[in-house]
């Protein structure tokens, strides 16, 4: 027994030596790798350690380690808080709306692009539709604040011309979610088509030719060739979109919301920001952030498992 232990000890020691030998052998590669290790340890793994403050009563003076432990008290408090549940509901509702209306939009647009025979026109529209993707939400928010403004915005002018009352798109709880969904579609629909266009381009043109010989018309082609060819991509994209349901779009909401619409527009990330960095309740905000991260992580694991079963394809 004794003998065996020391033997395996020796073996693993030798193995360890060999590993270091390999790192030394490729020392220039190791040198190139040092910045990455430092980066990931400091800026990716250390913050994960910082999550501990969600279980502590964090005092800046005492630092993360020396602040007193308080266990799950923040979480208990959190789950009893009406405002948390409201924010949670808002996040899910908004994501579901975006999924229902925003998800099909690029698919439809990609199919429309695909049906255009005039290639210059197609290129032109595509190029224009990609543009918003390159702008920050600060710029886009600024754009829409003026564009939708009840006083100077053309949208409300149009409404007034046809005899309707002006709409406070960003200030009314009835319209805020609608505005979030439409501005999100405006910003991302064009860019979203790219992945579908790529898979449309890989459809074998012989399929269409054969179908035409058999007397199939354009609509039949669309429904029986184009759409089925897109199904695998659509399935994958849908599954991953579902996996993102607790990940709200901080940049969009933060730049467009205001206290008048918190009731419907405040979401997990904006709530975390305000509780943490405005009200300086670090521990509580870290707890909210942790709940969100754990949910997001679970959702990704689940949707990935579903994806593997449905498509035999997953992220890992």
């Amino acid at each position, binding site marked *: 027994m004794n003998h065996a232990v020391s033997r395996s000890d020796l073996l693993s020691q030798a193995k360890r030596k060999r590993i270091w030998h390999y790192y030394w052998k490729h020392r220039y590669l190791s040198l190139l790798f040092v*910045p990455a290790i430092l980066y990931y340890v400091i800026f990716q793994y250390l913050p994960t350690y910082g*999550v501990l403050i969600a279980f502590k009563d964090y005092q800046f003076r005492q630092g993360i380690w020396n602040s007193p432990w308080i266990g799950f008290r923040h979480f208990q408090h959190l789950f009893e808080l009406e405002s948390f549940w409201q924010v949670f509901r808002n996040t899910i509702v908004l994501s579901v709306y975006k999924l229902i209306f925003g998800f099909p939009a690029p698919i439809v647009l990609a199919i429309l692009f695909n049906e255009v025979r005039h290639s210059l026109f197609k290129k032109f529209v595509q190029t224009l*539709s990609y543009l918003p993707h*390159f702008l920050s939400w600060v710029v886009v928010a600024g754009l829409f604040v003026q564009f939708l403004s009840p006083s100077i915005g053309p949208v409300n002018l149009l409404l007034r011309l046809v005899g309707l009352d002006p709409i406070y798109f960003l200030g009314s709880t009835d319209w805020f979610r609608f505005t979030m969904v439409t501005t999100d579609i405006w910003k991302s629909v064009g860019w979203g088509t790219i992945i579908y266009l790529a898979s449309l381009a890989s459809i074998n043109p012989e399929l269409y030719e054969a179908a035409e010989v058999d007397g199939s018309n*354009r609509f039949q082609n669309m429904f029986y060739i184009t759409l089925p060819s897109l199904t695998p991509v659509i399935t994958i994209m849908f599954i991953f979109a579902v996996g993102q349901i607790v990940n709200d779009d901080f940049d969009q909401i*933060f730049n467009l919301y205001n206290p008048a619409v918190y009731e419907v527009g405040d979401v997990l990330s904006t709530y975390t920001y305000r509780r943490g960095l405005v009200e300086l309740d670090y521990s509580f905000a870290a707890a909210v952030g942790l709940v969100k991260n754990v949910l997001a992580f679970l959702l990704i694991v689940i949707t990935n498992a579903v994806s593997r079963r449905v498509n035999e394809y997953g992220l890992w």
Partner: protein
Amino acid sequence: MAARKKRSIGELTFEYLNYTVLIFTSLAMVYPFLFLLSLSITPSEFTTVSLNLMPKGFTWNNYEQVFNNEYILFGFANTLLRTAIGTVATLFVTVCTAYVLSKRYYPNRTFWTMFVVFTMFFGGGLIPNYLLVKELGLMNTVWALVLPGLINTFQMIIARNFFLSLPESIEESARIDGANDLRILFSIVLPVSMPIVATLTLWTAVHHWNAWFDSMIYMQSGDKQVLQVVLRRIVLEGSDTMMDLSSDMEHVSRESVKAATIIVTTLPIICFYPFLQKHFVKGVMIGSLKG
């Protein structure tokens, strides 16, 4: 395409409908910009509401106002600085990391790949990241804007896949001549990797140009903020200090100055747009093939 039969009425209707929808889409994409452009050159006495994009008067005063605003000039300088430093640093570290992880013979490669990929799915979140930057003493320095996002793991993996796709043979002769890995990377592999380097550069530069949240939380004084934050203060928060309206300016209205500020911030992106667009689309293709 094969010779086409006579088109049916249904198909023709669809054709017209499709063109109409797409023309409407294009209009929806550019109309807001044209509206702002028009607003930004309109003198204050004419800033009434109109659907007509043709401004009734013309003035450069709004733009003059923007370029006389020192916060905006500081903002430009700060944005340029972070974009320059951030892009160079990110490019260098990303290429090095991707190259190492592309070498099948590098020890514990699978472990290191998982070590890196795990961070794509779980992170500390806003508060721990903020406290980290604070405790490292990076507040109010450009490093707070560069270091926390130094490597974008997804993009690094794309670069790694690119290196993996290069044939081994291009390195072999150099290796026989006794060149070390550093020389091989920088004088043999990199020159043939310009497509991926260009794509990474543009991704990173656009990211830095558009970034604002980190500056907003890590920079504590107005003259340290990046352009996007200055824009946010002026346009979204309506901050008078930041708008810096000088009293002697005539023909200037707040709404027009806001519009001019948005245009000025967006212009650099629009100028490089055709070029950016091409490379970004290519990037999505590379990503989706391997992802």
